[in-house]
């Protein structure tokens, strides 16, 4: 009896399951799978802040033939999860990519590397270099209807200072006061002269005061409101963020209707989504997939200068690298140009110092170290004719290119002059911990930031900041101070040149190269030029359908 009931239940549930699977299969057949180039998947346009994922069982409606134009949706495959969409709480580029659609800063760093008016139409700096006055664009409103004005600017600065867990520490450190002059004029006062102030506030996205106060930081994070080209639509955590165009944008109506930022953490998955036509743009194209993308006529790879990679040397402890001659010898021994060319297939540019080729102070005549005989000579002079042993720590940090392969090339080149570098591989967090505790003898790190500001000299080599692994403050500090406070453009350029030359000479690092960051773009479908100068890759560029 029981058995029969059990059997019957089992049989009927099996049949049910099979019917369900069959139905599912049919449903799937009815849905046009990866949309062909002209067809965008039906977008969810209903604004919702609730990050609850939809029921997937819900049968999709069959696409009804509509005579009206379908919305043009651009899908971008991003490598990491969207973390937070409160602009003053995040410092992740992944979040900035989304935020720069929804929100606007006062100024942007344009594709040509100069600052351009954005929500501020103009600015000037006082004679003492401390007070910056910004003229604001009139008639701009936030997506919720609030007016953009001087109060909103002051409110944004205040929020950056006061919100718990603020990521705007650079702004906080420098800011002394924000004064509202009139509705469309606002001035900021910095604690010391600061030539890179514009660069520091280029990531301060303007927030609507009433809305922000009403919803609080968590509410803002769930549903950000700005003055930007696109309005926030939905954020399904770990899956995607969608924004729709703001037809009333002060800078003209955007040419695409929707942008979806889809998180695809696996590099091969990102490439596959581009190849399959699901994504129109992908970031962080892995090194070995570039050719595959280039081979397709409708796809292309866009490059832009990315992180500067350097090999830091310990100058604090009583080790051979404390001797400047040894550090120079190591630079002479390593041939960064050939590594950039052969190990990285030319996807990097060797540099002789700590500056990007687009930074103020870049000197094309500064020579790149490369001379094995000179290296041996210097080593002998320093008392190490037979070389020495050193621990070389590497780790996968911020998507650096071919870390291990490059490290092995460096290892081989150092061996030629008698230096034995023992490679130690660390996990990212362990890498950072050892870095903070100053445990390294020799370590491979990237630095990614705005080349215009070149703030890393201050962060990495100045004794009052982190003073990291570097013990020559008497000579180095004044040079950095000059560079960081000189307001005159020409003189700042000269200060940068002098500083970089000294860095080159004193060799706290083995100078390596500037990496190229690769983006995959479906040019058969979208037209887009990346902004090569700044972290914000969309500002100052146009994103439009390819057919236009």
């Amino acid at each position, binding site marked *: 009896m029981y058995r029969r009931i059990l059997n019957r239940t089992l049989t009927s549930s099996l049949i049910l399951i099979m019917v369900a699977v069959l139905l*599912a299969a049919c449903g799937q057949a009815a849905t046009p799978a990866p949309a062909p180039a002209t067809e965008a998947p039906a977008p969810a346009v209903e604004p919702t802040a609730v990050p609850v994922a939809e029921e997937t069982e819900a049968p999709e409606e069959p696409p009804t033939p509509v005579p009206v134009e379908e919305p043009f949706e651009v899908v971008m495959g991003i490598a990491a999860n969207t973390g937070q969409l409160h602009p003053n709480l995040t410092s992740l580029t992944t979040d900035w990519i989304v935020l720069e659609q929804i929100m606007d800063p006062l100024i942007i760093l344009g594709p040509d590397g100069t600052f351009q008016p954005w929500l501020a139409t103009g600015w000037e700096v006082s004679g003492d270099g401390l007070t910056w006055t910004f003229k604001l664009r009139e008639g701009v409103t936030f997506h919720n209807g609030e007016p953009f004005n001087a109060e909103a600017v002051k409110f944004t600065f205040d929020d950056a200072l006061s919100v718990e867990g603020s990521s705007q520490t650079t702004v906080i450190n420098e800011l002394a006061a924000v004064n509202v002059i009139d509705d469309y004029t606002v001035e900021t006062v910095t604690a010391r002269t600061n030539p890179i102030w514009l660069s520091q506030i280029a990531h301060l996205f303007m927030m609507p005061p009433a809305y922000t106060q009403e919803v609080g930081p968590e509410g803002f994070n769930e549903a950000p409101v700005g003055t930007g080209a696109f309005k926030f639509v939905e954020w*399904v955590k770990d*899956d995607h963020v969608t924004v729709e165009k703001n037809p009333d944008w002060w800078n003209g109506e955007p040419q695409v209707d929707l942008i979806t930022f889809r998180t695809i953490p696996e590099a091969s998955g990102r490439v*596959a989504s581009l190849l399959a036509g699901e994504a129109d743009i992908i970031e962080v194209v892995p090194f070995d997939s570039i050719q595959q993308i280039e081979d397709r006529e409708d796809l292309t790879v866009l490059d832009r200068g990315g992180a500067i990679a350097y090999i830091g040397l310990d100058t604090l402890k009583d080790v051979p690298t404390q001797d400047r001659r040894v550090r120079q010898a190591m630079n002479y021994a390593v041939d960064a140009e050939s590594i950039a060319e052969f190990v990285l297939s030319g996807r990097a540019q060797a540099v002789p110092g700590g500056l990007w080729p687009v930074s103020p102070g870049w000197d094309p005549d500064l020579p790149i170290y490369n001379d094995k005989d000179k290296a041996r000579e210097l080593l002998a002079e320093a008392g190490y004719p037979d070389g020495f042993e050193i621990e070389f720590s590497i780790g996968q940090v911020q998507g650096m290119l071919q870390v291990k392969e490059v490290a092995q090339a460096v290892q081989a080149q150092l061996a030629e002059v008698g230096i034995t570098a023992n490679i130690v591989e660390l996990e990212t967090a362990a890498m*950072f911990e050892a870095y903070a505790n100053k445990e390294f003898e020799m370590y491979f790190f990237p630095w990614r930031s705005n080349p215009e500001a070149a703030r890393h000299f201050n962060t990495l080599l100045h004794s009052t*900041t*982190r003073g990291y692994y570097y013990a020559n403050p008497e000579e180095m500090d004044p040079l950095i101070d000059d560079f960081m406070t000189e307001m005159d453009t020409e003189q700042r350029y000269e200060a940068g040149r002098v500083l970089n030359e000294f860095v080159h000479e004193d060799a706290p690092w083995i100078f390596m190269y500037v990496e190229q960051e690769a983006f995959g773009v479906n040019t058969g479908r979208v037209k887009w030029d990346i902004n090569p100068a700044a972290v914000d890759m969309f500002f100052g560029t146009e994103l439009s359908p390819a057919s236009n």
Partner: protein
Amino acid sequence: MNARMALIRLVQGVITAFLVFTVVFFIMRLSGDPTMLFLPPEATQEDMDRFRHEMGWDRPLVVQYVRYLGDVVRGDFGDSLTYGGSALEIVLERLPATLELTALAFILTMIIAIPAGLIAAVKPNAILSQMVMILALVGQAMPGFWLGVMMILLFSVALGVLPTGGRGGVANLVMPAVVLGSWGAAKITRLTRAGMFEVLGDDYIRTARGKGVPERVVLFGHALKNALLPVLSALGLTVGAMLGGAIITETVFAWPGVGRLIVQSVLKRDFPVVQVATILLSAIFVVSNLTVDVLYTVVDPRIRYD
């Protein structure tokens, strides 16, 4: 199963969860101080010290452990370090996606593997049976990661019939569920076949056949139930393996579930999220094994837990 036994199992489950919690706590803490990951590069030594102090990371590990354990007992797992907001909520938000995927993979496993194992046992020399066994071997030997990437290349890039990843329609579920289910299916197929082989050689089967009982009834009525006993216990373990496998499958297919959350959170040293997620997954594992134990007594009344 009587009440005393159920209570013992429950206590065992709590102990398991506690051990998981403890091991995860210490492994996460001992594998690197994440302060630098959370602060911008401009942060000074004082900033770092202050942050460490705020987080309580400057205290001895044992003190941190006891304090956190106290919070957890009161139901407070702490806030996520990367997402902000309650770690528990963040994990619970992603749980439906993982359950959906695991459930489908589990159902797939059962409806494919048990019939396949039956066929292979009843007609061991048929070509179909041979194919089933080869597939089972391959399925068990292939790493899910590789299988996933290969399927994406075939079905998404080359044929263009299935989306490469993400969560959305039913089409998005197909590949992740197949990949996640493949390992378990292969194992269950082999177990079913082995179980049937053994049972079909038993005396009572010979007796039944001798009495002239139709073969259909012999197989499904007499043999299958006994053959499925080892399969049942394997199914409990398969749920565990699938929850573990979800970590890889979800990463490959960009599936927004708990598995991928764990990977991201481990990399970012988001301690609270990792703690919550691992406890939750181990709880599901414990419950599924408990269910198997109960089912045992239903399927085979001879089994008693005393």
